[in-house]
């Protein structure tokens, strides 16, 4: 029973007990008093009558008359005169007994025990028996009943007032208590939030202590994040420009190309500072560096402003910019060229930059991207100054089928449940399966093959069907887990969080499942969701985590350190992107970075997994970095313990 409810019970019990006890005690003592009074009246009247009778010199007629007169004038039930042998000489009694105007149960509950008054009568020395006298007592119960009613009414009013006062006090107590409990729950779920301090002193101390603890945790976290940013900068970035270096850019691009939820078409821009050696000789080292920094500054704007954009320095003179959106590469490259023309102007003439921009279908391999972009770059290099060469692949046939057709295909597939879940294991250190990653596949063509998310998800996103797809994946996962009791997790697209009904519907689905099944289900969102939809993510956690569902971030990388309020998010685990973990075995610096990421996330009591691991050496290095689990081709190829 909750504290508040216990206090309520106590208050109600005390009020009830005092009302009942008060009524009982007052009724009981009033009855005692009335009974004693009636008894006194009997005894006194009997003595007074006996005294008067004793003065009549034994005249029976006169004595009977006296008795009658006394009986008629007073309120008596009966008056009896018995002689010395006990035989009745004269008697008067009430013909119709009085009826008390009180409930029968009340009369039965409080019987009156009023003894008759008895006194001796004499005539000189001669004893002439005794008088026994009873007064009327019917009024006693009536008076008692009325007094009991009024006492009960008054005490009830006092009780009600007490109850109302208690309710007010309790509600005032309850608010800070609830706040403190919510805060405490938040802390256990990994949400470190401060709350307003209440005015009740005990609660204020508690809340103040909790707030201090939360603030200290945040400070620790922020210090770690800061450290991580520095480390990231030092290890994975080019020293001069601060952009990702070649290996890092390639890893990030690889991850971006393989991601399910990217756009159908995307853009890549390659930039080259022409004649780097010549510039070095003509303008000097400093001016050349200035030119390189100017290019980097123009590029850095994009990844900083748009999530998913990637910028990197591929080698001394080459830069790259990845734009994960269709139909923007032309305008972007043009704007970039204009910015560079303005930025490089003051370095004098002869500083030339070539830009090669391409837009392709995202399902092209990386080599095709670079080949196309290199070709465009080579063309651009033939010009003078800042030159842009743009190449866009024609729209594919499938897209040309028309938006409406696509929408119908996807929604039909979902409606008819032409869907299945793939299963990729995420394994722990002991090669045990921690959970199965379950991407959804749809059979868009009823007689065709199941197709991976990469083919239909971008279109589903555009048509706002991702929530439907994610819910279907969740339902399938719940079903499958109910059958085989294996833990599963499904992806939720960041765009799905835009759908206002998603959380409620997901909760409904989960609630329908038995508790052990709920606890085996995980939902994961891509890292950008934690930034773009932070509030919704929090709400998702608040609604689903109490039911047992796990909540995680996938494709997480260096960006984690940029999520200001990760400590308030309320997550269970984080999956590090392959761009962060690949090549960790060969790169001590990267291993150090991963290790400090793990430390930071562990301090928020999150589990840390690695994604997209292909290499056994990498896997070993990751185990050394204390990761909790690994997924990817390497993990799928392992002999799995059940």
């Amino acid at each position, binding site marked *: 029973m909750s504290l508040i409810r216990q206090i309520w019970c106590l208050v109600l019990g005390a009020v009830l007990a005092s009302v009942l006890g008060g009524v009982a005690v007052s009724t009981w003592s009033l009855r005692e008093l009335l009974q004693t009074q009636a008894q006194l009246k009997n005894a006194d009247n009997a*003595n007074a009558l006996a005294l008067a009778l004793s003065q009549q010199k034994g005249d029976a007629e006169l004595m009977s008359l006296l008795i009658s007169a006394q009986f008629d004038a007073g309120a008596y039930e009966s008056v009896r005169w018995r002689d010395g042998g006990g035989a009745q000489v004269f008697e008067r009694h009430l013909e119709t007994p009085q009826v008390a105007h009180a409930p029968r149960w009340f009369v039965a509950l409080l019987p009156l025990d009023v003894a008759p008054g008895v006194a001796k009568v004499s005539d000189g020395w001669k004893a002439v028996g005794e008088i026994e006298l009873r007064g009327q007592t019917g009024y006693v119960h009536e008076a008692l009943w009325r007094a009991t009613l009024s006492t009960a009414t008054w005490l009830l009013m006092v009780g009600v007032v007490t109850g109302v006062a208690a309710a007010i006090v309790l509600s005032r107590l309850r608010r800070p208590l609830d706040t403190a409990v919510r805060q405490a729950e938040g802390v256990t779920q990994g949400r470190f939030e401060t709350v307003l301090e209440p005015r009740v002193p005990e609660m204020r101390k508690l809340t103040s202590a909790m707030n201090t603890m939360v603030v200290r945790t945040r400070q620790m976290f922020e210090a770690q994040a800061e450290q991580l940013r520095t480390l990231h900068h030092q290890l994975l970035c080019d020293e001069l420009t601060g952009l990702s270096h070649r290996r890092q850019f390639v890893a990030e691009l690889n991850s971006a190309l393989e991601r399910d939820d990217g756009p159908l078409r995307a853009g890549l821009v390659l930039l080259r500072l022409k004649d780097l050696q010549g510039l070095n000789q003509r303008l000097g080292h400093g001016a050349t560096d200035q030119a390189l920094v100017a290019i980097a500054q123009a590029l850095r704007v994009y990844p900083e402003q748009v999530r998913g954009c990637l910028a990197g320095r591929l080698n001394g003179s080459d830069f790259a910019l990845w734009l994960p959106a269709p139909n923007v590469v032309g305008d972007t490259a043009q704007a970039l060229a204009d910015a560079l023309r303005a930025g490089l102007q003051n370095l004098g003439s002869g500083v030339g930059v070539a830009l090669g921009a391409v837009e392709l279908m995202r399902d092209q391999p990386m080599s095709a991207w670079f080949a196309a972009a290199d070709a465009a770059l080579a063309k651009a290099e033939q010009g003078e100054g800042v030159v842009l060469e743009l190449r866009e692949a024609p729209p594919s046939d499938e897209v040309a089928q028309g938006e409406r057709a696509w929408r119908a295909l996807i929604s039909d597939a979902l409606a008819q449940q032409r869907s299945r879940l793939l299963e990729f294991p995420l394994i722990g250190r002991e090669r045990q399966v921690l959970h199965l990653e379950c991407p959804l596949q749809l059979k868009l063509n009823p007689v065709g093959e199941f197709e991976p998310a990469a083919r239909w998800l971008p279109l589903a996103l555009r048509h706002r069907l991702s929530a439907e797809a994610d819910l279907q994946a969740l339902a399938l996962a719940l079903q499958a887990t109910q059958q085989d009791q294996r833990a599963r997790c499904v992806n939720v697209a960041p765009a799905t969080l835009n759908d206002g009904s998603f959380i409620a519907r997901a909760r409904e689905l989960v609630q329908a499942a038995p508790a052990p099944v709920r606890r085996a289900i995980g939902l994961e969102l891509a890292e950008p969701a934690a930034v773009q939809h932070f509030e919704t993510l929090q709400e998702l956690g608040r609604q689903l985590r109490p039911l047992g569902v796990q909540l995680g971030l996938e494709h997480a990388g260096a960006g984690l350190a940029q999520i200001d309020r990760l400590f308030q998010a309320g997550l269970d685990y984080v999956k590090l992107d392959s761009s962060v973990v690949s090549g960790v075995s060969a790169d001590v610096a990267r291993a150090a970075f991963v290790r400090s990421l793990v430390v930071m996330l562990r301090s928020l009591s999150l589990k840390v997994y690695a994604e997209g691991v292909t290499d056994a050496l990498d896997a070993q290095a990751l185990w050394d970095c204390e990761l909790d689990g690994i997924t990817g081709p390497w993990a799928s190829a392992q002999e799995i313990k059940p």
Partner: protein
Amino acid sequence: MSRFVTRAVSRAGRRIRPALWALAWTAGLWSALAWGWDQDRLTESAAKLSPRTQAAVKAMIQMADHAAAMPDERDRLAAVNGFFNQRVAFRDDIEVWGQIDYWATPLELLDKGAGDCEDYAIAKYMSLLAAGVPQSRLRMVYVRAQFQGRPQAHMVLAYYAQPEAEPLILDNINPEIRPASLRPDLTPVFSFNGEGLWSGVGATTAGNPLVRLSLWRDLLAKAKAEGF
């Protein structure tokens, strides 16, 4: 004796009324007293008092036992009447107790060795009950006594061999037991005993504050506590 009488006259008017009021309180304890006393408890109560009192109480118990063995109730009357008339000196309540009217228990009477008319009557009444005389034959009687030519308020104990018979009078002014007709100096006013009172109240009087409201009740409660 003459000194007593003068004083008795002076307060005669005041005394009858409070005594009558007290009569209203003859409830309960009389019935308990009617069956004699608890010798062990009486001795125990006496043990707190002086050795002289202890001896007197012992003598009273022996006297009552002795009287109980007598076949003729008249002999019992004589034994009890003689015992108290000889042992107890007549003195006013105001001298003995510092109060205008005080009704003493037999134990208090023996402890002080002195008392007034109702103290004699009470002690004789209780002793006779202990000696096995039925309560119905005993009555305490308020009388107007013509003493030395003046009317006095007085109390005696009357013994009725039969309900309608002429009673024998146990008095302290005239120590001889005589039939009522031979006591022209006494005019009866009112009589009472413990008969006919309900028994239920006896047990509840201990906690009842109303007990202390009258002399009579007070006396009965004290006497009961002492073992009567």
